[in-house]
């Protein structure tokens, strides 16, 4: 492994962990102002370093950095970080990074552990359709992940209101209405991305002459079914609140199970 890549492989998750610690401190602090600047700087640095890492992989191996599960985790974590920064701007508060950044920390740490940088893939496997399929699929997983994080925050706030606990978490977590709506938005985005990813994946398989098995698509359909049902029940039947939140969490549980199964079964995406 190139020494620079080796360094980045360790540095990126470490910087994310440090940023997560800063977000935790910000969340627990009474005076957020004292920690806000350092937290923002750390997040900016983490995202920049992460971007450099992805570009370095692409430059080193002359391919898109999506050849393995580890690189998929890395790319997914990168998308999560960007979504986290967007969410911060939308919600106008930095105290939620303790929740929304955690998946990125896990993703980069997992990527570092499993990383082995295989050489360039076959040209056909690096076709634009393939790359688009991978990116949209990852974007869908990331969107569902963000929706699940927001759903968990909803549950935390819901329980605090039910139990009349007015602690730091109660003060810092946004309103149930905001969490419900934004979680729904990311669920919808995830469904759209997953459908696009599935269609382009199917198209690529047909063009590349690969023989994919239908059984490997079952987890995908299960995930899609749960999340699409959530979207439909919200838009058509007007589902709100805990009911809606639970469907998101069930969908994410199915997604996690499907991803774990897929990861354990094969090393590469189509290995």
């Amino acid at each position: 492994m190139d020494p620079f890549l080796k360094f980045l492989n360790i540095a990126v998750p470490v910087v994310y962990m440090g940023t997560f610690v800063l977000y935790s401190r910000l969340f627990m602090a009474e005076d957020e102002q004292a920690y806000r600047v350092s937290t923002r700087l750390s997040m900016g640095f983490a995202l920049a370093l992460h971007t450099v890492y992805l570009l370095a992989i692409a430059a080193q191996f002359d391919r898109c950095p999506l050849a393995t599960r580890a690189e998929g985790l890395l790319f997914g974590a990168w998308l999560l970080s960007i979504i986290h920064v967007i969410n911060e701007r939308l919600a106008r508060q930095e105290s939620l990074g303790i929740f929304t950044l955690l998946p990125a920390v896990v993703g980069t740490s997992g990527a570092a552990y499993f990383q082995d940088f295989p050489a360039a893939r076959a040209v056909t496997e690096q076709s634009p359709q393939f790359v688009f399929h991978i990116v949209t699929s990852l974007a869908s997983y990331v969107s569902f992940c963000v929706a699940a994080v927001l759903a968990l925050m909803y549950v935390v706030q819901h329980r605090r209101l039910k139990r009349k606990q007015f602690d730091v978490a109660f003060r810092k977590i946004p309103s149930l209405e905001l969490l419900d709506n934004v979680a729904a938005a990311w669920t919808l985005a995830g469904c759209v991305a997953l459908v696009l990813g599935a269609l382009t994946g199917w198209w690529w398989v047909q063009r590349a002459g690969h023989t994919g098995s239908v059984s490997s698509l079952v987890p995908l359909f299960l995930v899609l079914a749960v999340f699409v049902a959530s979207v439909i029940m919200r838009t058509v039947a007007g589902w709100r609140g805990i009911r809606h939140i639970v469907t998101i969490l069930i969908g994410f549980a199915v997604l996690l199970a499907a991803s774990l199964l897929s990861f354990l079964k094969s090393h590469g995406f189509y290995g």
Partner: protein
Amino acid sequence: MSESTQHGPVEILLVGVNHLTSDVALRDRLLIDADKARTLSHDLTRSGHAREIVALSTCHRAEITAVVEAGQARPAEIIEAWSRLSGVPPAEITEHSYVYLEEAAVQHLFRVGASLDSLVLGESQIFGQVKDSYEAAIANGTVSFYLDHIFRAAIRVGKRVRSETRISEGAVSISYAAVELAKKILGDLSRTTVGIIGSGEMGALAAGHLHKANARRFIIFNRSLGSAEQLATQFQAEVCLLDQIDDELHRCDVVISATDSPTPVLTRDQVHRALRRRHGGRLFLIDISAPRDIEPAAGDLANTYLFTIDDLRQVVHENETKRRDAAAMAEAIVQQNVATVTAWRQGLAVRPLIKKLREKYSRLAAAEVETASRGMDAAERERLESFSRKLVGKLLHGPLSRMKEFGEEGNGHAAGYYANEIFGLSDNDDSRD
């Protein structure tokens, strides 16, 4: 603002009454509105009892901050002027007022602006009131060098306290606590519908705060339509009979119940039926009656959040505790800024000295330039003059900075002594205007 330092040293004096030292009746009589502030300020400045004046008057306090000649700080003169204006005998004002001088006056002013001296710790109105009183005094022409600096500092302190501490955060009244909780559950209240059960004062008060927080749709449920009319007009609300609550409850996002019914007016089953029609939309129930209007079991339903008056008091109590914790940080900010103002005032004492020294050496340099530049053309002369100015500035920078530090440390006399001994400054080295 013109510097007034050449008119001699001054003292800061503050005389006032507040909610701790006087009752509301006396404060009403001592109220200083805009016209009275103008009259009082001109009265005191024209009679020479004060050089600068700012009058602050709110529901909970009336204070007069003045800059007077050093050694001539006489609160009695300010109290007499106030007495003439208000008709309150001077003895009565004296009995109920407080007097602060110098650093204590500055500290009190900063604490007032930071809402540390308010009836409700951290209340936000006082900051604007301090600002308004300062601006009114500027318009009256009774603010000059000192109070301009001090009141600007007070405004900065108020801003810092608000932005760096949590002293103004969290509701400290039952009604505001209800609004806070509504926002936590429902987010933007402009799209919510508020149901009010009963037409009494408590319900109206809570509804009023929700209305101020942008809630716009109200439904009043009452046993009779007539008695709810006034409330309906106030909030442009629909009025329904209490019997119709089953049909309309599902439209409400917030329900405030404040009747004097001896039995519950809203049951768990009614709430459950409404929730089903709302497809899980959140419902915030506020029960501020005794005995309770809403069955406690209604709070166990999935998307329902039931708060009684005791729960709201708990919210208020916790917020009050947090504000008190934040007050310690706010006091530190106040002390820091009082020290800065004190250093600034001490530094003023050496300003004439610094000016003298700079002028003495500028004159010396100019004389030498005059001699050396004979026969030079205009451009060369200009270069020589520029060189001499820069040289004098660089040579004096160290000594002048040190003199300034001496002044800020309260050692103005030492600075004067050393300036005389080392630089030969004397009374003959008068500054030229």
